[in-house]
C-alpha cells in the first residue's frame, strides 16, 4: 500500500512537456500539407513516366506500370479525402458566425 502512495503526483508541467510535438523538421501545418501534396504529385509523375515508357515500347513490365498508376490513384484519393475533411471543417467554422 505504501509503495503505491509513494508514486509522485503527475504535474501539469510534466504532462505538457511530454505532449507529442510535431517533428522540428516538418514546420507548420501548411508545410506538412505542401509536402504531402508534393509527394502525391511525385507519384503522379512517376506513374505518367511509366505510362509513356510503356507507350514508347520501352522494356517495362505492364504490371509495374499498372501498380504505379494504382499507387498514384490511391495517394490522390487519400489526398482528396483529407482535402474534403479540411473543407468540411472550414465550412463548419464559417457557419459559426451566422448563429446557425
Amino acid at each position, binding site marked *: 500500500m505504501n509503495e503505491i502512495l509513494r508514486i509522485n503526483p503527475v504535474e501539469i508541467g510534466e504532462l505538457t512537456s511530454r505532449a507529442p510535438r510535431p517533428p522540428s523538421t516538418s514546420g507548420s501545418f501548411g508545410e506538412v500539407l505542401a509536402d504531402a501534396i508534393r509527394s502525391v504529385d511525385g507519384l503522379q509523375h512517376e506513374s505518367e513516366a511509366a505510362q509513356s515508357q510503356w507507350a514508347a515500347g520501352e522494356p517495362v513490365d505492364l*504490371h509495374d506500370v499498372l*501498380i504505379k498508376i*494504382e*499507387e498514384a490513384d*490511391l495517394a490522390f484519393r*487519400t489526398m482528396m479525402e483529407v482535402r474534403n*475533411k479540411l473543407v468540411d471543417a472550414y465550412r463548419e467554422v464559417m457557419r459559426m458566425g451566422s448563429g446557425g
Partner: protein
Amino acid sequence: MSLQRAFAIAASGLTAQRTRMESVASNLANARTTRTPEGGPYRRQAPIFVSQPLTNNFDDMLGSSLRAVRVDSVATETMPPILRYEPGHPDADESGFVAYPNVDPVREMIDMLSATRSYEANVTVVRGVREMSGAALEILT
C-alpha cells in the same frame, strides 16, 4: 505508406512469374533447335529465384522479415541432349545421331500453367491491397 510494401512485393512476384513465362516460351520455341551460337543443341533455360529484403534501408531490413522475390539468373540446364537416329539430317554426327534439346513439351506446359496461376495469385494480392486501401479511405466518409 505501408500498403506500398505489399504492392512492391506483389510486383516482384509478378516480375518473377513473367520471367518464368519467358523461359517457358524460349524452351518451347527452341524445342527442336539443333544449332546455337555456343555450339550444340539448345539447352533448357530455367530461372533461379532468390528472396531479398524489400529495401536498402538498414533499419527497415532489421525491423522487417518481409522478402520480395528477385530473379537471380536464368540458368542453363546441363541435361544431356536427346539423341535421335536421323542420318539424313545435316547436324547428324558420323554415326547418324542428331542431338535434340532435352525439352519436354508436357513439362513446359505444366510450368506455363503454374506460372500463369502464380501470376494470377499475385494479381489477386494487388487487388486485395487495393480493396484494403479503399476500405481505409471509407473511414473518413
